[in-house]
């Protein structure tokens, strides 16, 4: 049966009528039209669907809607506040994207990493960012971009 849920996404409440096991990913994409969050695998392998839930990164393909009412969800669309978030700016400055499909998830994972660890070591970057696959192989530039964003105070 369809059920009604209220989700707070990027600071705005949205009411949706969906199956209660619907993953957040598909609600963002199909119901709310927030398509920055990507489908890559559906089983939490690739991280293309990474969003922030109460500031922490979650893979939205495995977060059923009934778990996240009354939580604050941030997608890539809600990251820039007036101007680009330092992580977004670093992604441009390091010319990270190739095909670009995974980068929404990569950016959200990096934002979460920097909010917990403002000045991450290579090992910390490896550990946290290894949940996000980039098939184009932009990892080396992602690493540089995270360090650049850290210097710009992204985690402050």
């Amino acid at each position, binding site marked *: *049966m*369809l059920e009604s849920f209220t989700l707070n996404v990027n600071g705005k409440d949205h009411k949706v009528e*969906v*199956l209660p096991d*619907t*993953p957040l990913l*598909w609600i963002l*994409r*199909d*119901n709310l*039209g*927030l*398509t*920055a*969050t*990507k*489908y*890559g*695998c*559906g*089983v939490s*392998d*690739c991280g*293309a669907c990474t969003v922030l839930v109460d500031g922490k990164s979650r893979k939205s393909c495995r977060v059923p809607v009934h778990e996240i009412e009354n939580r604050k969800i941030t*997608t*890539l*669309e809600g990251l*820039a506040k007036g101007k*680009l978030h330092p992580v*977004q700016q670093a*992604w*441009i400055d390091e*010319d990270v*994207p*190739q*095909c*670009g*499909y*995974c*980068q*929404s998830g990569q*950016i959200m994972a990096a934002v979460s990493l920097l909010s917990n660890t403002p000045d991450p070591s290579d090992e910390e*970057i*490896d*550990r946290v*960012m*290894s*949940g*996000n*696959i*980039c*098939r*184009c*192989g*932009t*990892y*080396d*530039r*992602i*690493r540089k971009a995270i360090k650049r964003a850290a210097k710009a105070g992204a985690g402050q």
Partner: protein
Amino acid sequence: MKSSRREFLKVSVAAGGGMVLTLACRNVAKASGSDRLEESHAVNPFVQLSTDGTVTVTISKPDMGQGVRTSLAMIVAEEMGVDWASVKVVQAPGDRTVYGSQGVGGSGSVRGSYMSLRRTGAAAAIMVKSAAAQAWGVEASACKIEGGKVVCGSKSASIGEFAQAAAGLTPPDPASITLKDPSTFKIIGTPRHRVDNLDIVTGKGHFGLDAKVEGMLHAVVARPKAIGAKAVSFSDTESKKVPGFVQAHLLGSGVAVVAKSTWAAIKARDVLKVEWTAGVDPTLTSDSLEAALTKAGVAFPNVTGAKTIEATYTLPFLSHAPMEPMNCLADVRADSCDIWVPTQVPDGVRDMVARKIKLAPSSVKVNVTLLGGGFGRRLLTDYVDEAVAISQTVGKPVQLIWTRDDDIRHDRYRPASLHAMKGGVDASGTPIAMYHQVMLAGDDPSSQWKKVGLSYQMGECQLLESGAACPVPTFAWRSVENTYMNLVRECFFDELCAAGGQDPVKARLALITNNRLKGTLEECASRAGWGKPLAKGTGRGVACFAGYGSYITQIAEVTLREDSTLKVTKVTAVVDCGLAINPLGVAAQIEGATMDGLATTLYSAITLNDGEIEQSGLAAFGWARMEDSPTIEVHVISGGDSPGGIGEVGFPAAGPAILNAIFAATGQRLRKLPVGNTVA
């Protein structure tokens, strides 16, 4: 009958003011002295100059991450003499009659359109200067364009001011146009960020799955596990209980499941009951296939030399696995059809759809989105065919999505291969012979075969080809035959060096036949500090590749860690791709292809059991992650005034450089891929 291409320019007034310049091409077939017009179409470049000075370049080639939306526009902007900041790009729909061939593959986009793009940009500049000269009463030859301004003596104005007047002039004959001296280039050869970066980092990049039309339904297809199995019948009793389920129907490839949302379609498919025929060969396993390949081998000729060695390499099937799974939004109506699709062949999609639904191509609109990766997979149009069939059946717009398991299990794969190698070194240790038997597995082994020359001068060198037909569908994968040919050659050459006690760089330098390839090797050895001492357990490996009009050497460093795991710590690449249009984009392609080489050497494989593909997800297929990523240093060296290909160039030498480094670090020759990241 000989045919020749003749270019001509067309000019028109832009909607909203300004000039649109189109370089078109006639293919003229010459028969018994009289010219006969065969066809005419534009060759890629459509350039619009707006009255505000904005230059809009229509990009006819899809961008799958290779950066053509940036590099192709840079070429036009260079010859026009405008500021890069004033350049915008728009993506062309699929249309062979207007854009010619739009396919992207074989590292050919820049090489194929470089000169025509330059001529179009230069023609636009000539017309703007003519218009300015008329307005100012001066000679056109006295005018020049700099930074988006026409300048003549003390007079200066934005080129946009002359856009309207230029649109009324007769365009020059492309053959008469004098192009810029490359030494004066201001945009070509300079590092430029990808034009789509801002959209991508803010979530506005529009990929195939982001397409949406009013009233659209969502579809997935239930597919068989066994290769070649067909759906006989199905029961959707349980599917009907899923709210949002619309319908299910038989399709050539399985059973289409249509619903009002993606999730409902996936859930309804999960509970759909399908009766499948048996697959084409339920006994097929990776081991049985390897045995068949081994059997396909022939006896080697006698190999001369003071010392001879033999080795066998095996490489698995590979899935393309782009990040964005296959998808297509099709809206088939009685008299027309709209498609939104991430494809490497927009023109091919249009022709295929028109044939399929029996409409004129002009009634089919193919909207090309950004591609979430391609790697060859999106040269195929199977997913478009399905989406069109489903939309036709339900009579509504339908977005078809292949879930990741569909994508991994139902790809057309890079063929598996077995390579029997035999070679010899002379008394001084110099490699003098290399025989290479290639046994390919797949549904069409011969189509994947291409003779690949050896980069080294050796007395005896021969290729012996064979294959084992098996029902596994195969297709081109980034760098095609070079994915396996170059890996095996470069690793076995390393084995010959070791057998002869030779340094792998010095031995290559002595025997390498192409000076540009040699140049990359010398530079790379120097940049990577070849020969400098390394810590115990760390080794360097080198490999080279020449192809697609470009040359590359990669040197990898591998460390054997205390826990017996291997880590590729650094890869240094030196690439000579002729004139690099966008060095930053070139470096990106080499970095990415290096990671491809690393992933497929250490982790990735598609294997078979009981006539089924065993993998169904990215984790099972195996891909490289951040923790696997080495520091990658790419040095782009200039090799002349014309661009070489780049998309495939970074792959073929990356894997063998890593394997040769593993040997240097551990003393082990790992010849069965993927080799994993631990050693015994």
